[in-house]
């Protein structure tokens, strides 16, 4: 796609990729446990979420938490603590499982039976760009009706697929200057 930026930030513009902003907003809407996994409270909250039922254990295993039930029990009882590597693994698994569980409901709320959700594009930050290189990039908003691919890619934590889905399903609808919104400050929407 020719509108894609090749050397973003060459003249001092600042921003993040649109799909990263979308993932952030979706994460905020999904609502994770806020206490960090390094604290006992945060660790227990995550482990309880992952071992709540047989189905949850299965999902955790499928998402990559390949430890024995004996180890899990020891972690939960506090007889042993996970190593740093395992802490990272728990965190990663927890996010994947949580996203997967929330995705169904988030999707229904975002599609709103075909009515879609209004999305705000807050343009990139040009405050560090020299005056001659400034471009008029305005705030835009858009109604996005099809969220299926976006949510699917987000739940799978697949950045490439999310980028692709975001550009083709949403950003392109902004019109021929959509390339100006490949990088943004934030993307805002409610669910």
């Amino acid at each position, binding site marked *: 796609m020719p509108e894609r930026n090749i050397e973003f930030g060459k003249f001092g513009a600042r921003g993040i990729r649109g799909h990263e902003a979308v993932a952030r907003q979706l994460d905020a809407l999904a609502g994770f446990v806020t206490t960090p996994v390094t604290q006992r409270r945060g660790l227990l909250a995550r482990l309880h979420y992952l071992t709540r039922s047989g189905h949850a254990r299965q999902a955790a295993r499928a998402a990559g938490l390949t430890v024995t039930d004996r180890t899990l029990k020891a972690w939960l009882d506090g007889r042993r603590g996970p190593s740093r590597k395992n802490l990272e693994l728990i965190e990663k698994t927890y996010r994947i499982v949580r996203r997967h569980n929330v995705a169904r409901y988030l999707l229904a709320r975002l599609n709103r039976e075909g009515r879609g959700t209004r999305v705000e594009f807050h343009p990139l930050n040009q405050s560090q760009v020299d005056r001659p290189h400034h471009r008029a990039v305005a705030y835009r908003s858009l109604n996005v009706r099809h969220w299926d691919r976006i949510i699917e890619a987000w739940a799978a934590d697949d950045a490439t697929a999310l980028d692709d889905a975001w550009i083709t399903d949403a950003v392109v609808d902004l019109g021929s200057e959509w390339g100006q919104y490949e990088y943004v400050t*934030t993307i805002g929407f409610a*669910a």
Partner: protein
Amino acid sequence: MTDFGAIDALLAGAAKEVPLPSAEERRTLREELNLSRPRLAEVLGVSPSTVAGWESGRDPSGEVREKYAYFLAGARTKLAAETAETAELAEPAEPLTAHIDPATPTAPADPTAPGTTEDPDDVGHLAAPEPCVLCGQPAHHQVAGFPQHLDPAECETAVPRETAEPTAPAAPTPARREPEPSRVDRPARPGRPPRGVPVVPAGRRLKTTDTPDLIGSAVAAALAEHSGDVEAATKALVKRAIPDAMALLDHSRKGGRYDVIAHPWLPDVLRKQSARGADQIWEARPKWARPELPPGEHEVTALDVNGAYLSALKTHLPLGQLEHSTGDHHDRRRAGVHLITPPEWEHDAYLPNPIGSRDEPGPLWVTEPTLRLLLRVSGPAYGLCDPPEIHESWTSGATEGLLEKFRVALKDARDRAIAEDDEVTLDYVKAMYAKFVSTLGESNYNRELYRADWMHLIRAQAFANLWWKAHRAYDQGLMVVRAMGTDEFHVVGDWRAVFDEGRGVTEVKVKDVYSVGAPHPAD
């Protein structure tokens, strides 16, 4: 060389002053007619506080005294006629004509006042029959301009009035409460004139506005759904107040110049530090009590500002993303949050600090209304303190009109609900604006709008408005004793001369009256 003609003219001119009724009666007469002080003052060409002075004992003089006497006499005549009507309603066996005689003994009209014209034309014959204001059937006579039946037998006022709302045809009658018998002493307004049709210019012509009455229709639908059960309908309406307020906001921005930006990037000062924590903004909520009172016993009145958050919706709101700037400079076209060092406040003994009760010294983040309040009181007009020092700001281009249509729609619905004694609409409107303000920020109950900056600004505006009320009381010679919360301040003195009492947003209501201090020891 004495000019006797001039002396004669002087003597003729210096007639005895027109007598006026007592101060309490003046006030009662105006209030019985549901006239506000500013309205009367405007007509008489004086300031509202002057009228307040007349109603608390002072006497006008000169030409304006005659005008005032004319008004009072006219008011008395009108009230006498209306009392006669209500009396006629209460005892329909008596003939009406006996009561509408302007020379009724209940209101001895002042013969010297120029307003007492002996007009028997109060009762008039109508060429074409018009609907009676009491029963709605065609009537051939009018009394004081209101068409009605003279013979109570013709008039079917005995059946309860079923005045269907034009905008809310589905509203069952229980919502409209009949006036309680205890309020009969107040003259019932004889029939509300039908609400006008709102029109807008369209090209070279006029057309009716196609603005649906969202609030009215929601109330009507809820009442219909709960088959007139007021409590159930109110509960259902309050429950859906947040989405309804957002729908009303969207509707009010139709064709507006600016978009409501709901999810902007916010600087760290506006972000909560933790899930339950607060951000760094100081809203300047007043929590002030006068340190000491003069000796003696004082009667303190706790006054309450009506709809404080509703009025505070009119404030300078930043439109887009907040931008950072440094330096001691304030741009009046922008609004946001500012890091300031507040000035010293030396008037704590009799006026609250505009910055609220701040315990720690040093710079703090305040919002636009607080900064504007500080700049104004430090300006030449007031000179109460030094100007605040601004260190840095997060601002954006601002407008005061962003929520204006939204606010006016809510205020109109509120006023109408008060006038019609419609508790359902009143509760609904209250829930709408209160919940709108409280969920404007990062609330999970309203995810449509994430404007923590607006939430702080609107609250701070309510507190600034309260500060100005306290200042006005102080300025008019009352003793301000407390200012606290969002909408409460306590005063000592004749506050009725300063504030109007009532339920409107510009009026105040009495929360409590208590006395403080020991009475003087008897000699």
